[in-house]
């Protein structure tokens, strides 16, 4: 079996295991919560039932009827099924995207109450914002990093490093709040909230989306680009100290060529994968940034479901979809690394 195929299979197995673990956790917590909620609902219904019973019944008859009614309801809600069975059922449902229906009457603006429909309504906007930001920040960051590596040690390079360290320690969504404060409140250049989304069609629609996207996009790029550039710069400069690069320099090959030709070949796999991975890691921060800007994506949906509605099926659905996206992204990053760098090895170090 070729090494790359081995690598691929192993990584995929890992991804499935991870997904399984998270889904199991979701199912476990869901079943537990669902039980508690069902108990509450049964208690309400039984009380209503007891109130509606004819008054001429004896005390004994009443409690007999109430007991029967309770048992019937508990049966319907499946309260007496073994817990592991409920967890298993829930796990399977989650895996197969049967995510249930929202508790909320509003459907969050989607066309029906199914969690999948609601998520389908919100996910594209997150993907739009997030991938645009990722592409811009990765390209810009790598470009800046390469430039900095060329002029390593100069003031420009140092300034970039400090910028990178500073922004790396900032919470992205907090910068978003400052951006609103400055550009929406003080200067009034942009609308403070992205919601509601534009209702026009055609050109006006796209213009509206772009105006709403400007601030969140700028925020994500601003916060992530410095760190990206800094990481790239460090990887490139450390490779520049390798012997064969020194040799290339000694031969009089121009510095530009050394960096773009020789160094990039070695540096590309770690630079690209670390860029993708760190972007995956920032998913949480980006979702909160959506909340700050009222950008109607997954993060906004999550907050609404938590804050206003306490809508468990929707929350569980979001968690599952986010995990799924993460796992797939992680797998892709891994694959890309294996693809770019044929030297990767699986298993423990070979000691020869």
């Amino acid at each position: 079996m070729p090494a790359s195929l081995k690598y691929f299979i192993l990584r995929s197995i890992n991804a499935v295991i991870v997904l399984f673990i998270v889904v199991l956790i979701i199912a476990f917590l869901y079943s537990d919560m669902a039980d508690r909620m069902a108990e509450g609902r049964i208690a309400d219904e039984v009380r209503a039932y007891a109130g509606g019973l004819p008054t001429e019944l004896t005390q004994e008859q009443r409690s007999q009827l109430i007991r029967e009614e309770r048992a019937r309801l508990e049966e319907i809600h499946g309260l007496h099924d073994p817990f592991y069975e409920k967890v298993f059922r829930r796990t399977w449902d989650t895996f197969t995207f049967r995510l249930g229906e929202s508790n909320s009457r509003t459907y969050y603006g989607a066309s029906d109450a199914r969690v999948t429909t609601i998520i389908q309504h919100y996910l594209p906007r997150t993907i739009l914002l997030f991938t645009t930001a990722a592409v811009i920040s990765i390209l810009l960051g790598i470009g800046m990093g390469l430039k900095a590596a060329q002029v390593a040690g100069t003031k420009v390079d140092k300034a970039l490093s400090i910028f990178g360290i500073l922004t790396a320690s900032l919470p992205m969504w907090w910068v978003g709040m400052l951006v609103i404060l400055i550009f929406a409140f003080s200067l009034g250049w942009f609308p403070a909230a992205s919601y509601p989304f534009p209702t026009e069609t055609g050109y006006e629609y796209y213009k509206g989306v772009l105006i709403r996207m400007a601030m969140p996009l700028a925020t994500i790029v601003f916060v992530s680009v410095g760190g990206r550039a800094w990481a790239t710069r460090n990887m490139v400069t450390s490779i520049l100290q390798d012997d064969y690069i020194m040799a290339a320099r000694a031969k009089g090959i121009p510095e530009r060529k050394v960096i773009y030709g020789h160094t990039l070949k070695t540096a590309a796999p770690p630079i690209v994968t670390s860029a993708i991975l760190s972007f995956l890691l920032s998913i949480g921060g980006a979702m909160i940034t959506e909340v700050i800007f009222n950008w109607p994506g997954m993060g906004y949906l999550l907050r609404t479901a938590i804050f206003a509605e306490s809508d468990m099926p929707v929350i569980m659905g979001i968690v599952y979809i986010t995990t799924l996206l993460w796992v797939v992204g992680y797998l892709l990053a891994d694959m890309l690394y294996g693809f770019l760098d044929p030297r990767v090895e699986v298993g423990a170090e070979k000691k020869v």
Partner: protein
Amino acid sequence: MSIRIDDIKERALSMMKEFKGQRMGMIGFSIIIFLLAISLLSPWLAPDTDGQWANPGRWEDNPRSAAPNWADYILPGTRAPHDIREDYDELDRTFMTIKYVYENEYDYPPSDITVFVSGTSSESRIRLYIDLIRPDGENILFVDESVSITNGTFSYRFSLRSSAGRDRSYDFGLNAHRDFFPDDLTPPDRESVNIQMVPFAKLNENILLDPESLKGTYTLEVEAVGIDEYDDEGTRVLFRGMKYGLMGTDSNRKNLALGWVHGAKYALIIGGIVSLSSISIALLYGMTSAYYGGWVDEIMQRANEILLGIPIFPILVITMYAIGRSIWILVLIYVILGWRGLAKIIRARGIQIRQDTYVEAAQSLGSSGGRVITRHMIPQLLPYAIAEGALMIPMVVIAEAGLSVLGLADPTVVTWGRMLSEANQYHATISGLWWWILLPGLGLTLLGFGFITTGMALERVVNPKMRQR
């Protein structure tokens, strides 16, 4: 297999010396010391804050949405300070009138006047008047009311922000407005007027829309007809400020400086627990893996790879939502998952050290496995792990803050995240309450900067190869 104390001391000292050479690291380290000091002093610096954060009674005497005191130095204009009068300035016994004299020399006059009156009377009802006499001689009568007496006492509360207060202010402004624009059929309505400023505004054509502070001496008069005696305890006036304390207040009157102190405390507690536990677990796991090698290593690495693939954010959301909104659940999740990346690094370093000849040399001198680990491996790996572990602290604290904004804040503690989440909830951004956003976030930034620079400086001290760069 003992580690000699003076040995450790000496090594620590020499590392300290090198660390002191790292300027950024020293700045970062001072920040950490500062935060630590504040946290340790929090019971004295900020008493009654922790459990009382959501209790409005605790903050009743504070102004709403007041800027920090130092705002005057960096922004144009001067702001009225918070002024609490326990004693009246004058008492006229003939009419039982008390007076409070207020010197308004500010571009932004007080945000509110709250009057508490209480006293004794032998009648069954009394009549109460409260009015404000302005420097231009105008007089606004805010209260003209009959108050009933129970058990010979009464107490009364009035605020410019109550509906009566707002009505009177608006009427006053509207009258003035009419003088300038007699033909205006649609004067600005109550909602669009900056109503809290009107009683202190110059009588000009802008009084409703863009009021300007009228400076000079104001007198607040309280007259209670039929009263026997004012009660000194229960009678007082708050000229609520436009600025307050080191960090101002939020729109629910909470003193942000007090919350900030506890925010620092919880940040260090959360981060400290997670980073210490991660360092210990990672050291144990990584070193076991590196030291035993073979299939032990293989299995441990495989397990770690799976753990590394688990996304922490959705797990946090789901557990905190389903089990409880508690920082301890967050801490637990991070204790379970936080060490995985560090363990991988430690293992790699450990394998490197194990393959160094001096470890073999130590064995050939007769060192036991335990001695090799304590004398050669831990001294090298520990500072390294500490440097890396330091970087975890801001990460965890920022995660907590983010979850708070999503609505998963722990209601029993005050964290910077909770403060920011409230800022977002009450629209601090679009109301321009910059201090409410800036200061808690500055806490997060300081913490991040402090630990990242310290960690980086430590890493350089520990890993001499990096020092050359």
